[in-house]
């Protein structure tokens, strides 16, 4: 089993570390999360679905990360930093100006933060980890249809929150 586990570790460790860094912003802490999740993977190696191993890892790591308050605070700071950096980062072509870009990204962040924890993580798994299909279902510990439904709901809630935020800001500008 050790040989199989080492191969498994070498294939997924850096991706899992990216997952942890995206939520903790601390390399030391990310290492701890990776180590802990991989110990769990060792102990439950036979339970890991062969068709969705990384999704499974994400599911375990997600439930670790989200229950830690310090991680939540770090994540909020990371988003603020990302928004600040977005002003000089080339992004989607259809946006007309950096000023608009920064404002819209701020609105996306504000909308994102209104969502519940589960919605946020569902969207992170899709947008940042690139999960879909079986991997996403494994991460969410549910069926593929149920996972798709969760994504659809979370996406709609984000869109609604974004519209609410941007409508408020347009009204603010009109009032000036």
């Amino acid at each position, binding site marked *: 089993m050790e040989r199989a586990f080492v191969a498994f570790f070498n294939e997924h460790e850096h991706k899992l570390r990216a997952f942890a860094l995206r939520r903790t912003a601390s390399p030391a802490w990310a290492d*701890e999360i990776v180590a*802990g999740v991989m110990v769990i993977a060792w102990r439950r190696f036979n339970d890991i679905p062969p068709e969705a191993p990384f999704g499974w890892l994400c599911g375990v790591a997600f439930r670790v990360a989200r229950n830690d308050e310090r991680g939540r605070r770090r994540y909020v700071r990371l988003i603020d930093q990302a928004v600040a950096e977005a002003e000089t980062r080339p992004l989607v072509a259809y946006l007309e100006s950096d000023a608009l870009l920064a404002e819209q990204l701020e609105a996306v962040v504000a909308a994102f933060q209104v969502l519940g924890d589960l919605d946020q993580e569902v969207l992170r798994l899709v947008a940042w980890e690139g999960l879909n299909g079986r991997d996403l279902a494994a991460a969410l510990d549910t069926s593929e249809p149920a996972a798709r439904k969760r994504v659809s709901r979370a996406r709609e809630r984000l869109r609604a929150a974004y519209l609410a935020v941007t409508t408020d800001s347009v009204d603010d500008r009109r009032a000036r």
Partner: protein
Amino acid sequence: MNDPRPELDPLSALGPLNPVPDAEALRDPARSAELLRRVLSDATASVRVLPSSRQRRQRRIIVVVAVGAVAAAAAFAWVAVRGHDDPLSLSCYATASLESDRTQVPPAHGDPRNICASEWVAGRVTGTRSDPPPLIACVRDEGSVAVLPATRGTACSRFGWADLDPNANRQADFVIRAYDQLVAAFRSEPCLDLHEAHATARRILEANNLDWIVSGPPEFPAERPCASLAIDPNERTVTLVPVPRLPAADG
């Protein structure tokens, strides 16, 4: 006046906000080798290997509790590996259906319905913050508690479950109390060494009349001198796990 901004798909806009856009760039053979060595060492440490001899496949519960205010590195959530067969498990269902989305919460004292009600308010049951509906609490076959919306006609018996008697003294309550005390004791100190940790765990278990095993390696490595906990109620074992001494809080 029309909003001059072009339409933006907010989900698409999350992509550029990815703090780590390229996972491949994180490949570091030396670091990975060290991490692997540590994982294999921890995984094969003197922890009782949980047998798989039961007829029904069950997941075990392993909880690792952070030590000290900043040792969150090892603060694996109670729910990280908990399975559906855990007697301390509390599941908050979004609908009165076995196929429902659900969230599992760490064990805590108090009425499970109130605990799940808080989860509804926080948006962790359905993904949206909302007032909780009327709730009922049921005991599943393996002893874990499920809290469901009490829609008309919903009864625990509909799922073959028993009603939860809030007045019954569950063994889980004693374990939860010990768990709370263990967490508090370990988090109150920046770093407990192996011997201090063993004595603390032993004292708390005995105070709660729990005839459990406290296990761990014979000594801690120099780079990981502090103790964290892994608690397995099914196996009635507390395992001491070595973790690094982390720097002071970085805010």
